[in-house]
């Protein structure tokens, strides 16, 4: 005989009491009937309801625990309903159901008295109430089965119990999302591909204690600076000249105090009455929360705004001039060189030594001759040294042989020009084929560019001729004239302004040419005034593609550099612009170019990204000194390269980088030359030189040979920088030069590996080369020695010789040689500039 657990009469009665209480709460929770109190946000709620509401977060744990436990025990009774667990289950269901009802009611009170709303809340509420009702049904069913022996209802009862347990979990999850934020769980998952780069945390820089005392003009200025920084980083995206949501702008004093669509946003002196403070303190997902998209403010950012308002929201008038973004000095600066120490004479080394001392870093060991020679060959002329050159160098006994050879390479004007042409083609988006050419909407500057590099044209002249161009150099500022109607922010005058700013001045004007920038202080008007210099007739300012009716002024971005005569014709305006920009007072321009050359040689700029020269350099002294030295010594790029390549800093062992992010990290520390991969052009030229030409002379789009004076030999094979872009070079990273490109993606990819593994071009060249080598080196050992010497400038180790022997056999076929080539050329040791 089974035992029946029946609820005592009192408990049964409770079943009916609970719903009655629920309704009583709902009915009487009316402000009209109850004694009123003022809740935190002004709505009136009877204190008891408010109090009970606050119990919700505690009470909710009961139904979760009890109902889920009941469901778990129920599993153990699946075979036999009348298990010994039955009474326990019934008790669990009872407590669970009662507490579920209570939780639902308290929750309802909490939502009302604390004015919580939002879609997530609705969801939580609906599922919660449904679950509470379900749990009541489960309780009734369970009672009925036990009492009336209705075993045919067991299935229904069990389904309802399991659903209730699920419902309780779902409700709990939504509830937790409300309190902890929707991404509480998922934000830490490794596969949660949150794309946004973490913004530089500014909260760590806020020092609230500095403002606790009475403010003086100086601290007021500092405070407003920090407040504006918080607003800029968190609010400008939607509330500034760039974008005005809710009729509210926060980028200027008058707008902040004017408020927006829903009135004033702050009450000076009273944070608790200030709408902005209420909104930034709401939880994520709330309808009114600000910022409505993206991250909420950090605690210290919130405290800063509260403190500022409680101090009366002071906003001294001079504050507008104070920048919230880092702005680099425009003027040149020549720091006094540190005193020379033993073994160090190159000024670069003196600065680096200072930097190492300050940061407790050690010098890397000096590199051997082999590594040095390979490095300067690749960096100066883009080729690997031939065996003959390598031998000559190693037999050279002069103590100064490194600098002698470096100078020798710099004197190989055409090889030098062909190599550096790639860098400048990328930066000046000069290509031989591409969009725009078929409709005469684009002009090639190769001839001018090549000649300028070859002749080592002083950089100030170089820039002058680009900006105030002749027929041969006009392509850069003429830009690409696309057919059809283009965006106002991409008309050729604006392209010119953007590109000159980016390439010549290390400044991003792309934002500001559409609207006031929210990444810098640059304003739309200023970008247009700059673009106007490149215009035939005065430009009309467009904000986000809408003409504003205002005509642009004509001005250089920095007043210090001088005026442009707005009435002058275009040629005259450009002449003035060129003169103003190249003057030594424009320290920014010379910092930009020395930083670019530094990056080419050392793998990473002193400032990164190299197009954002307002960023903090790892050594301000080194950057400033190099720039002034460059300007004082004839704007001589070859001299700068010599200076860098003859320094100990360059002649030290390279440093490896574990991930690309490390290079642009804010806390980057310079430890030495960064190891990098060969460019598409360096790799191609090495293959062409050692094995077999990769390109046919028909593919060459520019033939410097034809320019050469008689008796001077040009390159013996078509070099990669002179041929039209093709799939092989594209796969290896040569950019499509429709926009300026100042650094290349050097990470390998599957598509690249496929091109190298089974691409026709490389395999054909290797095949042809193998046939040639087979005839010259019938002996496999000799062939191995030769290849290692040519490609890696060293002898193969014993182990490598064995591997090669096994692969080549005694009498290698051309196929075996071809495969051996391939394996060596794809070695990281060959592909890296180290």
């Amino acid at each position, binding site marked *: 005989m089974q035992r029946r657990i029946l609820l005592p009469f009192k408990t049964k009665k409770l079943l009916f009491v609970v719903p009655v209480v629920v309704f009583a709460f709902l009915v009487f929770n009316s402000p009209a009937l109850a004694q009123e109190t003022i809740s935190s946000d002004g709505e009136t709620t009877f204190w008891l309801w408010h109090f009970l509401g606050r119990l919700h977060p505690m009470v909710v744990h009961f139904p979760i625990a009890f109902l889920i436990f009941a469901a778990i025990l129920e599993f153990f009774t699946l075979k036999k309903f009348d298990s010994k667990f039955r009474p326990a289950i019934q008790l669990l269901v009872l407590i669970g159901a009662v507490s579920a009802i209570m939780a639902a009611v308290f929750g309802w009170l909490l939502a009302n008295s604390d004015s919580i709303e939002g879609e997530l809340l609705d969801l939580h509420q609906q599922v919660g109430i449904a679950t509470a009702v379900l749990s009541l049904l489960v309780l009734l069913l369970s009672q009925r089965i036990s009492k009336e022996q209705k075993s045919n209802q067991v299935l229904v009862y069990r389904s309802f119990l399991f659903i209730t347990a699920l419902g309780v979990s779902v409700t709990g999850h*939504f509830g937790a999302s409300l309190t902890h934020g929707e991404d509480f769980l998922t934000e830490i998952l490794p596969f949660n591909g949150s794309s946004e780069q973490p913004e530089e945390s500014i909260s760590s820089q806020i020092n609230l204690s500095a403002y606790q005392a009475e403010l003086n003009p100086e601290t007021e200025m500092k405070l407003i600076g920090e407040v504006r920084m918080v607003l800029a980083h968190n609010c400008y995206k939607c509330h500034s000249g760039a974008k005005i949501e809710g009729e509210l702008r926060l980028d200027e004093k008058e707008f902040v105090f004017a408020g927006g669509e829903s009135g004033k946003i702050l009450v000076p002196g009273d944070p608790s009455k200030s709408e902005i403070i209420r909104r930034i303190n709401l939880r994520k997902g709330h309808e009114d929360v600000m910022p409505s998209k993206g991250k909420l403010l950090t605690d210290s950012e919130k405290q800063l705004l509260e403190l500022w308002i409680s101090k009366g929201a002071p906003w001294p008038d001079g504050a507008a001039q104070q920048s919230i973004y880092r702005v680099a000095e425009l003027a040149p600066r020549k720091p006094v060189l540190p005193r020379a120490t033993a073994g160090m004479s190159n000024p670069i080394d003196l600065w680096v030594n200072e930097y190492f001392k300050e940061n407790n870093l050690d010098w890397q060991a000096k590199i051997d001759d082999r590594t040095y020679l390979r490095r300067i060959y690749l960096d100066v002329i883009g080729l690997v040294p031939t065996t003959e050159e390598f031998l000559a160098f190693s037999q050279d006994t002069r103590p100064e042989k490194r600098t002698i050879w470096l100078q020798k390479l710099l004197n190989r004007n055409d090889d030098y020009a062909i190599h550096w042409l790639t860098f400048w083609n990328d930066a000046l988006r000069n290509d031989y084929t591409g969009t725009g050419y078929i409709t005469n909407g684009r002009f090639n500057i190769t001839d001018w560019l090549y000649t300028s590099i070859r002749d080592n044209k002083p950089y100030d002249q170089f820039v002058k001729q680009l900006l105030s161009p002749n027929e041969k150099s006009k392509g850069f500022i003429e830009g690409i004239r696309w057919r059809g109607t283009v965006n106002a922010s991409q008309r050729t005058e604006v392209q010119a302004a953007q590109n000159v700013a980016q390439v010549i001045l290390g400044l991003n004007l792309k934002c500001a040419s559409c609207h006031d920038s929210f990444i810098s202080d640059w304003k739309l008007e200023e970008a247009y005034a700059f673009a106007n210099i490149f215009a035939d007739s005065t430009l009309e300012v467009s904000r986000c593609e809408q003409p504003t009716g205002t005509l642009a002024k004509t001005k250089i971005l920095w007043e210090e550099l001088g005026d442009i005569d707005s009435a002058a014709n275009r040629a005259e305006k450009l002449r003035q612009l060129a003169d103003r920009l190249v003057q030594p007072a424009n320290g920014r321009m010379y910092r930009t170019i020395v930083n670019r050359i530094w990056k080419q040689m050392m793998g990473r700029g002193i400032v990164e990204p190299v197009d954002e020269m307002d960023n903090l350099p790892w050594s301000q002294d080194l950057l400033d000194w190099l720039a002034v030295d460059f300007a004082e010594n004839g704007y001589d790029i070859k001299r700068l390269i010599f200076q860098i390549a003859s320094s100990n800093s360059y002649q030290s062992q390279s440093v490896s980088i574990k991930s690309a992010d490390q290079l642009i990290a804010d806390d980057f520390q310079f430890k030495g030359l960064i190891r990098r991969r060969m460019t598409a052009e360096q790799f191609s030229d090495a293959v062409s030189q050692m094995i077999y030409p990769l390109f046919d002379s028909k593919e060459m789009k520019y033939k410097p040979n034809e320019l050469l004076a008689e008796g001077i030999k040009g390159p013996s094979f078509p070099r990669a920088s002179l041929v039209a872009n093709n799939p092989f070079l594209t796969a290896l990273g040569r950019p499509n030069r429709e926009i300026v490109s100042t650094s290349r993606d050097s990470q390998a990819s599957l598509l690249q590996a496929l091109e*190298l593994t089974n691409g026709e071009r490389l395999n054909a060249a290797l095949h042809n080369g193998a046939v040639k080598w087979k005839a010259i080196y019938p002996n496999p050992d000799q062939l191995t020695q030769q290849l290692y010497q040519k490609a890696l400038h060293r002898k193969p180790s014993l182990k490598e010789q064995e591997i090669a022997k096994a692969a080549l056999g005694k009498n290698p076929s051309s196929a075996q040689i071809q495969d051996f080539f391939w394996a060596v050329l794809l070695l990281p040791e060959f592909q890296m500039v180290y």
Partner: protein
Amino acid sequence: MKYQVNRRDFLKKTSAAAIASMAMGAPMSGLLSSCGTPQMPSTADSVILLFMAGGMAHTETFDPKKFTPFRKGMEAKEVLSTFPSVPTILDGVHFSEGLESIGKIMDKGTLIRSYVAADLGFILHTRHQYHFHTCYEPPQSVVVPHLGAWIAKEKGPLNPVIPPFINIGQRFTVGEGEELKAFHSAGFLGSENGPFLIPDPTAGLDSVRPPIGMDTKRFESRNKLYQDLVSASPIGEFGSDYQKESLKQSMEQAYILLNSPEAKAFDLSQEPKESYDKYNTGKFGLGCLLAKRLVDQGARYITVTTEYEPFFGWDTHDNGNTRLKDMKKMIDSPIAQLISDLDASGKLERTMVIVASEFSRDMLTEGRPDLKVQDQVQVPDIIEDMKNYGMHRHFTNGCSMLMFGGGIKRGHVFGKTADERPCVTIENPIKIASIHQTVYHALGIAPDKNYKIEKRPFYTTPDGHGKAEIGLLG
């Protein structure tokens, strides 16, 4: 927009129903797993875009109007369609003659008759294709990623050895090749998300097999030699380096792909003859077959194009009627076969197939009727010659698209164009940003997905605008 549904709305509407349905044993996993994840649940894993490059006239294909047969001396303004209409499997829905096979499978997808292409000044193919594939108007100040590159980046490969973004059928050596290259790019998403190009589908295998003339044995021993030399090379002493590591990894991945059984999917000669013949209407048809084989093996995103070459293919500046007969023959049976095959294998459930063109054509109207742009072709008022009989001008305000599978409604017609010239969209206009967002929505890519480029947010669609068109989704 009224069609926008976010995850919470969706859950709210369905949660009560879900709780109720659980009692009937309906699965709960969909509801639970979608909680708290930042993305929508997806309805599609793969996307195939069948691109009718060159401008496919809606009135001659999927949205026929009154047919006026050719006669010498007819007035150009009389002509709305140069083909008679034929019924489709959907009641009251007609296609232009020559598209009977596709008509028979329209119960499996949605016909959109209200795609409105942007007006970008002169109506130019490469600019509009750029806009269609990237959602951005050229030029831009950064290199903008192709739709396929976004998908490759966000979803990754479905099968690790099949490149996630494959482009079939377009050569870049033909006219305006440079302009085409401009948008066949992963841009700032990084070259690993760029297109894997198969210009000729019959030579698809060449891209994924050992180099020509190298048998498997030799390929394997070459790879072993490489591995041996890598481990013997002293540069290993320098420690870890991301460029070195990425090179080694990519080489390994390439080797796996070139040696994998999946690579056989690229080989059309493995297809049974009967099936091969059904698809074989030329390069485009075989491209569809290749797409089917690749999706079966786990491809993520594929474009198959009829190929854009100025004045060829759909780019009918003359002989519109005559040439469209051939074009329809080229696409009708392969598209129908692709849909039927995917449906039969169950793949259509999670594969979205889109048939689209950069814009439409009309006999008289160039561009938008209210916006005069430069004439591209001369159309005589009185037609004496068959070569002038056809849709030769570029038209943007009313284009047809087909969408199937991956969550798209079955047997549905969306939008409408006027029955009188200029036959513009009069109901449910849909633009490119919505099309892109609909694809992203189906794949579960959040509508506000963006990357910070030069410190500015760069979204999948300009400023994150455009909403997924829920009216298309079942």
